[in-house]
Every structure is written in C-alpha cells, then in structure tokens.
C-alpha cells in the first residue's frame, strides 16, 4: 500500500543576473521523477552530489518555495492518508500546515540544523507548540519522553546544541522530527556528516524507531553501504532523473543501468583481489546541469551509448523485477 506517490516531479532553480536580478537561466535539479513509497518501507535514494536527491526530499516536505526565491515546481506529490489523497506540491503554506505533522525531515548537517539559541528541550518542543494544544506540563513530559527515546537524560533537556557532539545532535534532530508522530520521515543524508562508528548507532536507532513508530522512510544518501543496510528498495538518481529503481538486494547484486553499475562498483569491498578488475571508471565529468545533454542525460559518460541515445529521454521500463531507464540493457 503506497503512502506517497511522486508523479513527474520537476524542480528548477532560477539563476538570476543583471541589474534587476532577472532570471537568465535555470537549473533543472529534478527533471521528471516518478516513484512511490510503500507504507512501512525504507526507500533509499542514492546518487552522487548534485543529482537532485536532496531536492526531491525538500520538495516532499514542501520547504523549497519558502526557502528558495523563484523556484518552480511542477508534477504531483500525492500523499495518501486516511481521509483521502492530497497533492502536496499544489498546496500553499497555510493549506500545507495540517499535513506537516505527518511528513517530517531529518537534516544532513547536525550543526546548522539546530537553532544555536534554543535549548534541546525548546527545539524538540517547537513542533508540539505549533501543532498541538497540549498544556505546557504535558508538552514538557512528551519532550523528555522523546529525548529519552533517542538516549538523552532529563537533565540534558536544558542544554544547548553546541554542548553536544555531532552524533548526539543528529539524535536531537531525530527527536524533533518524531515529535508530532509523523508517518513519513525524509532522512536527508542523516549520517554522512558523522564518524563511521556513530553512523551505525544513528542508523540502528532509526531502524528501531521505524518499528516503534510505524514510520516510512525515504533515506537519501550517497554512501551506498549505509543505504544497503537500511533500505528495502533503492532508487538511483543521476542529474535529476531516476535511472533505476527496484528492490535493493536485486539492484545491489545485479545492477542493470550502466550508471548504477558504475556507482555500485565504487562501493569498497574488503577484498583486495576482487576489487581491481571490478571497478568501472566513468569517463569525463558530470555535465553542467544548466546545459544538460539531450536525450539520455547519462549518454556523455555511458560506456554503451549509441547515437540514438541523444534523441529522447529513455522511459523507465520494467526489466528483471525492477525499473530501468535504458533500452540497451
């Protein structure tokens, strides 16, 4: 059962220039993305930096329009909740408000994502203050309960974020995201800013909370080993397009799209002998997102590109139990 369906999502950021800061170009960060999130699952969204995976996450929690002036969003983000379907992408900020408690986000940078002037308690309390009418006493109780869930003691409620380490701060971010008892949590590279030893803690905590709170995750990452650990299905993105999406185990074992193959071959394996010939090195650089290649965006670096690849964007086709956007596999 799908809880969220993203249909043909396009996000473009304007590039302003000239005396009156007119739009002179645009970056199509997300260019026609389709996927769905099944209730209770974890969908891993992977791809290299700048491929638009964070933008997809921010579009779903609907914070792009207030944060980036002039951003253009089209397509649908259908949220299926008890009372019916609603297209989040079309909602104005006041209309979005009732759905905000259901869809929350964990941010990548544990330093800039917590307001340095607020105590840990105030940070976690904020969503409750906005969305509930709980009396102060009950709110405080819920805050300490939430912080307890992520491993903090009651005394630490009145501390400031700068008194905690990166991993601890990320747990504060998790507690904040869970405060309103959300159904969907977008985790935007929640562990990439942390040490490897701390990463495991946070990922395991997220998995425990998923069971306890019945959450559906969209787990955005560039670190494939972390995604593999946590997600049932993965979607591979390149330059604003999803190139392959399907069950994680399948894609890991046998990636079909040439980009997925190259990306997965970059995962380090603890076997020096096997590593040498396995690695696929891509030629060239990621194209400038302002001037994307015509047709298949990956064709400029693709080892199996053919002249016809330049003609039209290859659609996702169902092959070997997953969807792939390449006709030659």
């Amino acid at each position, binding site marked *: 059962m799908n809880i969220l369906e993203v249909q043909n999502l396009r996000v473009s950021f304007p590039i302003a220039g000239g005396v009156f800061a007119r739009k002179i170009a645009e970056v199509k960060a997300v260019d026609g993305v389709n996927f769905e999130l099944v209730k209770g699952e974890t969908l891993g969204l992977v791809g290299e930096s700048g491929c638009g995976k964070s933008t997809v996450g921010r579009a779903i929690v609907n*914070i792009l329009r207030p944060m980036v002036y002039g951003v253009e969003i089209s397509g649908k983000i259908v949220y299926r909740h008890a009372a019916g379907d609603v297209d989040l992408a079309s909602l104005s900020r006041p209309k979005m408000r009732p759905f905000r408690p259901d869809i929350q986000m964990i941010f990548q940078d544990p330093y800039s994502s917590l307001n340095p002037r607020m105590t840990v308690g105030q940070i976690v309390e904020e969503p409750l203050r906005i969305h509930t009418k709980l009396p102060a006493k009950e709110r405080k109780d819920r805050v300490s309960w939430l912080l307890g869930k992520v491993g903090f003691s009651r005394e630490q409620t009145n501390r400031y974020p700068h008194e905690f380490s990166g991993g601890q701060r990320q747990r504060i971010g998790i507690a904040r995201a869970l405060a309103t008892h959300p159904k969907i949590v977008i985790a935007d590279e929640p562990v990439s800013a942390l040490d490897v030893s701390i990463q495991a803690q946070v990922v395991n905590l997220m998995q425990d909370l998923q069971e306890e709170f019945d959450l559906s995750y969209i787990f955005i990452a560039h670190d494939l080993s972390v995604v593999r650990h946590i997600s049932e299905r993965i979607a591979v993105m390149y330059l604003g397009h999803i190139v392959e999406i399907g069950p994680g185990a399948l894609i890991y074992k046998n990636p079909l799209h040439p980009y997925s193959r190259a990306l997965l071959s970059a995962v380090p394996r603890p076997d020096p002998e096997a590593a040498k010939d396995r690695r696929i090195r891509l030629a060239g650089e990621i194209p400038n997102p302002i001037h994307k290649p015509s047709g298949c965006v990956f064709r400029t670096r693709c080892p199996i590109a053919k002249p016809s690849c330049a003609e039209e964007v290859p659609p996702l086709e169902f092959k070997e139990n997953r969807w792939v956007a390449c006709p030659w596999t």
Partner: protein
Amino acid sequence: MNQDAGTSRPELPPIAEPETATGRPSVSLLRRRLRKFRTLKRGYYSFLLLLAAYALSFLLPLLVNDKALFVRYEGQWYFPLWRYYPAATFNQPTLGEPNYRDLAQTFRQQGGGNWAILPPFPYSPTESLLDLPGSPPHPPSWQHIFGTDDRARDIFARLAYGFNVSLTFSLLVLAISYAIGITVGAFLGYFGGKLDILGQRLIEIWSSLPFLYTIIIVSSIVVPIYIPGRNLVLQPSFWMLILILTVFDWMGITYYVRGEFYREKAKDYVGAAIAMGASDAGIIFRHILPNSLTPVISFAPFLIVGNIGALVALDFLGFGLPAPTPSWGELIGQGMENLTKWWLVFLPLAALFLTLLLIVFIGEAVREAFDPREYSRLR
C-alpha cells in the same frame, strides 16, 4: 536483507556528559558573551560608570535645582518640587515663584520654626543668576564650580541636565531607528527577490539625501508658529528632532540585518522550522533574529556616539533643541563665541569628550565579546 542488523547490533552507548556538566550549569551563547564582556575590564567599568551616571541623572531635580525639596513655614509643610506656590505664600515680596535660596537664608536669620531644605546644588540650569557681581559669563567660583554662561546660567547644572538630555535623546533615536531598521532588514533578507531589490534601491536613494542640509531646512521651516486666537505654539521640539534623526538613522542597520538574514535563512534550522509549520513571523522573530543580533549589538554603542554627535552639532548650529533646554551643543557654541572664557570652551568639550570616550570603550568591549569568530564553530 539486513543480515547483520539483527544479530550484532551495538547497544546505544549512554550519552557522555558534556564538559559543562561537571558541576557548572549549562550556558547559552548570550550568557557566555556577557561573561566575556565582564572580563574586559575597561569596557565593563565604563559601562558601570555610565550606567550609574545615567541612572543618577534622572534624580537631578532632587540634586541640582533651585526649588526647595521641603519647606516648613508657620507649622505647615510645603513641597515646592512637586507643586507651585506663589512667593506671597511665604510672605516674600516678589512675583511668581519664590527665591528659595533667599527664603532659606531668611528663615535661618529669623530663627524660629521655619526652615527649608534645598538640593545639594541649589541652582537650576535655566535660571539666570542676574544678582551675581560682574557681568556674565562668570568664571568658576566656589558657588558656581564651573562658572556661568553668557546668560549667567550655571554651567555645572546645564552640563548635568544636558547629559541626561543627550543620552536620552540618543537612546530613543537608537531604539526607534533599530526597530524600523531591523524590521525592514529582516523582511528584505528573509523574503528576498523583488522586494529585496526594490527595497535596497529605495534605501540607497533615501540614504543619499544629505542629512545635515535636510535637517537645517526642516528645522528652519518649523520655526515657532503662534496660531492667532489660540495659544498653540509649534516649534522644533525634542520629539520632532528625534523623528528627523530617526528618518536618517534607520538605514544603516538594515544592510547588516539583511545580510545576516540572507545567510541564516539558507541554514537547515530554518528549513526545519518551515517543515514543522512555523509562520513567517515566527521564523523571523523567534528563529532567525536571535541569531542575527551580533551586528545589532556591536553597532549600538557607536550609533549612540553618532547620535550624541548629531544632536550636539545641531544645537551648535542653532537648529537643535528649543531655547532654554540645557544642551551641550549650545554651550559649545557659546564657547566658540567667547574663546577667551576658558571655562565656556573647555568644560562642555570635556564633558562631551569623556562621555563619548566611555561609550567607545563600551563599544570596543562589546565588539570583542560578541566577536562571531570566538564561537564560529557554533554558528
């Protein structure tokens, strides 16, 4: 999937107590900065001194005044500081307000039950002491420690009251222009886009108006106007000058606040606040503003200096506060006209210099205490 997850999951380690937990209570960034400010002795003591002097200056009517605090006359109590009594009340042969210094002396000579308590320095800043020997300005003497000005008004009294007037004026201009400037800067930086471009250009145009000329023109238009038939008088007043200065003063801080908001808005905690459904006003004032106050606080002392300077300049040129108001600029102007009278030249300048020096010391310490590099990791 997750073959390794179920079997050997490491337990969540207990969160290590942060270093501040060893007995010391948790401190906010602001507290830390205030603590740092207190260690910067020169600025901190300047601050205490100025604060004490300013607080004391509100009690000036009790300390420096020509009216008696209490009068005991024929078994009755009188409080001239709070009520007006005609001279005839005390059987004094003058019109209007009695001369309480003479009254006290008369009572002393008469002996008996009548007496009057005068403030420690019994001269008013607006009172012309025409009975002094010689012609004004009078040089310093034991009674008039700083001498008198060209209308025989006591300079010490005028400087003391002028201190209160200058600082109050300057703080009010600061408060009003900050309220406007911070709000405008916040909106420009937060909403960005067309509003930002347009707002910035308007501010640039507005700020290129020549301040002094405009004020001189406005002040000379708003001369005392007597409306026939009624007793209304319109003239450049204290509040009017505050308004005029504010109109030119609010722009400076908008640039800094706008920049701070522009930077802070891109940070994830703002994204988180939007994601949890906070309103624009909530985000601007609850989330971003507390993180954007560094330039606001660091500039405040220097802007106060600027405002005092502006008021003194206007008074000096004669476009400032209305006539009998005790003002430093007016005294400095008198010094200019009486260059041979050293007390008229030197003392008002010294008062101005010392006050501005104290504020600049405070400003330096504040700037150092609020240096964002100090805690740059936390920003």
